[in-house]
């Protein structure tokens, strides 16, 4: 990408391996993406496509024996994939904030939200108790919690699901990180609450000029929130580009099939478009293009050679159809 110097996070050819008794599986290979300040990159894919793992790899939270076996991760002008655990602890929370799916398990039920917020603030920023508490109140106000001066002394169970997710967002923002990784932040919430959380995330991202990586399986959430979209399939990035382009004029057959298989709120159709089969298991990824067994326009070349991500217009996609034909 041309704006590499402005990117908050720049992932280059990332590869993750899990060595095991029956050989090594590669849940992520050749992932390249970057996010600029104030930009929301949506990462979509089916379960097991590697979208959450990309987020974990960036945060240095891969579970052993998983390891980054290739590529580079740059946070601003600092390379972070080679840092040790202690150095990464300094970065997590301070420079990279995280929001997880289930707001109930990401908060400690034994402490008030205020003490959890001030602990995080004081860990990362040089602040006294009084100052940190004032910042915590301000954060709760920023995320739209009514009467924050009072609510700060409440325990997580005293909040509803939507309010709890707001607290988690406040926690992620507490040290003004440059990057927020939000992994399915609205999946556990009802639609009417989901809409509130999406618009909150979008507003905060723009106001505070934070880069956001929004991991989700829900195309609707992507359409509402993201500026750019990265589509993943079987551990690879297959298409990336501006949200309107990827959603409404997708170039990769998988993205095309995915978009057509979503029941529309507009006209009702007799039969939904379906992609037959399911995503291959990580230990049985076919040679060539990983999507070839399910692809409608598969050719001989797709079975032999793996397509690289090639820039087309504003975006990029990995398909032989857009790179010289499938024959």
């Amino acid at each position, binding site marked *: 990408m041309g704006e590499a110097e402005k990117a908050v996070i720049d992932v280059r050819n990332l590869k993750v391996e899990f060595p095991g008794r029956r050989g090594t599986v590669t849940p992520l290979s050749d992932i390249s993406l970057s996010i600029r300040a104030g930009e929301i990159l949506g990462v979509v894919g089916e379960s097991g496509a590697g979208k959450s793992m990309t987020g974990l790899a960036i945060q240095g939270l891969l579970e052993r024996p998983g390891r980054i076996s290739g590529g580079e991760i740059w946070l601003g002008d600092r390379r972070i994939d080679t840092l040790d655990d202690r150095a990464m602890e300094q970065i997590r929370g301070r420079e990279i904030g995280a929001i997880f799916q289930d707001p109930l398990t990401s908060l400690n039920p034994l402490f008030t939200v205020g003490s959890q917020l001030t602990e995080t603030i004081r860990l990362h920023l040089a602040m006294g108790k009084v100052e940190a508490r004032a910042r915590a109140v301000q954060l709760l106000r920023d995320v739209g919690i009514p009467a924050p001066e009072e609510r700060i002394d409440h325990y997580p169970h005293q909040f509803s699901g939507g309010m709890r997710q707001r607290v988690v967002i406040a926690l992620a923002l507490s040290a003004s990180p440059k990057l927020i990784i939000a992994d399915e932040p609205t999946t556990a919430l009802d639609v*009417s609450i989901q*809409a509130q959380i999406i*618009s909150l995330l*979008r507003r905060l991202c723009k106001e505070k000029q934070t880069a956001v990586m929004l991991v989700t399986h829900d195309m609707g959430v992507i359409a509402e929130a993201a500026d750019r979209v990265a589509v993943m399939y079987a551990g690879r990035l297959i298409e990336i580009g501006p949200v309107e382009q990827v959603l409404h004029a997708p170039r990769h057959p998988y993205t095309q099939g995915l978009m057509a298989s979503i*029941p529309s709120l507009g006209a009702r159709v007799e039969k939904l478009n379906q992609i037959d089969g399911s995503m291959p298991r990580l230990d049985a990824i076919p040679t060539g293009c990983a999507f070839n067994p399910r692809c409608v326009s598969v050719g001989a070349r797709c079975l032999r050679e793996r397509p690289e991500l090639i820039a087309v217009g504003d975006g990029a996609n990995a398909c032989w159809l857009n790179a010289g034909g499938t024959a």
Partner: protein
Amino acid sequence: MTASAQKKPALTVNGLVKTFDVSAPWLNRVIERKPRQFVQAVNDIDFTVPAGGCLSIVGESGCGKSTVARLVTGLHKASAGEIRFAPGRAGAPLSAQMIFQDPYASLNPRWRVKNIIAEPLRELKLRNTAAEVIERVEELLLTVGLSASDGEKFPHEFSGGQRQRISIARALASEPEFLVCDEPTSALDVSVQAQVLNLMRRLQDELGLTYLFISHDMSVVRHMSDRIAVMYLGRIVEEGDTEELFARPRHPYTQLLLQTIPNINAPRRDRELATGEVPSPLKPPSGCPFHPRCPIATARCSVEVPAVRALANGTRVACHLATDKPASA
């Protein structure tokens, strides 16, 4: 009345009520002087499902939609009210089966698929010999788009979508005429969801099934159903023809639901919605349960529970303010 409402109902539900006792244990009540506590999970609802059609019940978590599914299939006993199935092909009341949400939890991991599907056949003595059972199991596997050899495998060898196909095959084993589907695709990925929805539509046509479909996903509901009932805090607030309900929602809650669905074709983006949250079913608001969130609530709404009224177009709505003329939405 619309065409679908004139069809013979397969299921008629009248004044259905389900109350759960959620009181603290006896000793705690005595010591802390707490009264008994009840949740009205389903509060006086009426609906009919037309034979060969599909009625969907939608609503947010905790609105009582899954309780309705369990009441209809007899997994819960109703506190009051009546659930009546019409006579089926054999003359006896038609039989219902259920498909559950989570295909990972609803299949026994230690059983081979052929035994999972054969269980209702053996239990209800629908086939006499072992050979007939095997034949029927293979037929069912083919019906749901799996191969006959898949019967020898265990559930863990299948993906989520294939597991849901196994659940459907098991539900079809006893040749039901009525299927209750509780969020059958919520645990699946979109590309797989489309496969399962297409399969369910095909089976409906081929086998003449009637569906009661429970979901929170409005786009799935729109694809599957002829009629939709919207539930809020244990009550049906609006029930009507699918197209009519999407085009002209009459109840403010239905309007809110339709507004908040992420729309791929017309995303909302920077508009922030003040939609509030569902109150606790333990302490439902007085009057109309929706009035604290309702943008058009009047003084009357906080005192008087609105009765369900039928409008000229066949929609039934529980709102003091809904009229035959659609609201400016």
